[in-house]
């Protein structure tokens, strides 16, 4: 077999391999023949030591099939990433957003409660102090002044404690929200990286 025959057989057994790659492969063997001849080898000799071109062609075909399947997997990964983001978005819309809104509303309500407790405490003590000055506007409702003072201290203390508690609760709420957002971003990024 000479160079021409070898290359032709190889070319024929490369059917199914992409055209640019086929040219590349054939170039490698052409160069091999050229270098061998520069070294004083005969075409037939070189062809013989290269081996059966049909067998070589087969190993290239297997290689390019593997590439295709890898490419296919990449496409599937992209699809999975898109699907994961979509389903994550759907889950967020249906479950997370309502839960978040509910928790936020509850938190606001509790804040309002805490503020009104504190304001009530202060208002009672102001009422006790201002009543002698403004008898036309403020009545103590028949309650004794010591009772009102103690009640005011109690209500104010409760308000203050609730405010401190609310402050802690809000910080915790913000932290959890941040963590959940990060978790979402991580999932999306991971899917992208895999694709």
């Amino acid at each position, binding site marked *: 077999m000479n160079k021409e025959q070898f290359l032709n057989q190889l070319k024929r057994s490369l059917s199914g391999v992409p055209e640019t790659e086929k040219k590349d492969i054939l*170039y*490698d063997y052409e*160069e091999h023949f050229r*270098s061998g001849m520069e070294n004083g080898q005969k075409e037939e000799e070189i062809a013989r030591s290269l081996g059966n071109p049909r067998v*070589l062609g087969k190993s290239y075909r297997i290689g390019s099939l593997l590439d295709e399947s890898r490419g296919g997997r990449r496409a599937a990964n992209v699809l999975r990433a898109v699907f994961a983001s979509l389903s994550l978005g759907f889950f967020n819309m249906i479950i997370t957003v309502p839960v978040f809104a509910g928790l936020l509303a509850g938190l606001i309500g509790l804040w309002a409660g805490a503020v009104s407790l504190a304001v009530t405490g202060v208002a009672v003590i102001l009422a006790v102090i201002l009543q002698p000055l403004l008898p036309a506007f403020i009545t103590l409702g028949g309650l004794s002044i010591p009772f009102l003072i103690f009640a005011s201290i109690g209500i104010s203390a409760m308000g203050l404690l609730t405010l401190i508690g609310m402050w802690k609760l809000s910080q915790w709420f913000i932290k959890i929200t941040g963590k959940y957002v990060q978790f979402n971003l991580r999932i999306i990024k991971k899917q992208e990286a895999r694709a």
Partner: protein
Amino acid sequence: MNVQFKKGVLELCVLVVLCRRDYYGYELVHTISENIDIAEGTIYPLLRRLTKEGYFTTYLRESEEGPSRKYYQITEKGQTYKEDLLQEWTHFVSSVSNLIQEEEVA
């Protein structure tokens, strides 16, 4: 010797040889076939696969005789891979030698 086994060893040989310096195809094939009896053509599919996997890069350089030649250069990834394979190989060979020696004693 078993063809599949030879192919695996061939991969290691190509990596080891290319660790020394850059070779062009014919030169590399020649170096290996001087030591190992194999159909020379099978080295090219191997080179192509290992290049695709990022173990080698290629570049063209003019030769004194005329047209340019495609040179293969090992990458850092290729060197790490070679080290791994070499370790596996050494382990394998010593295990086999141990086994053979045990047989001889018994």
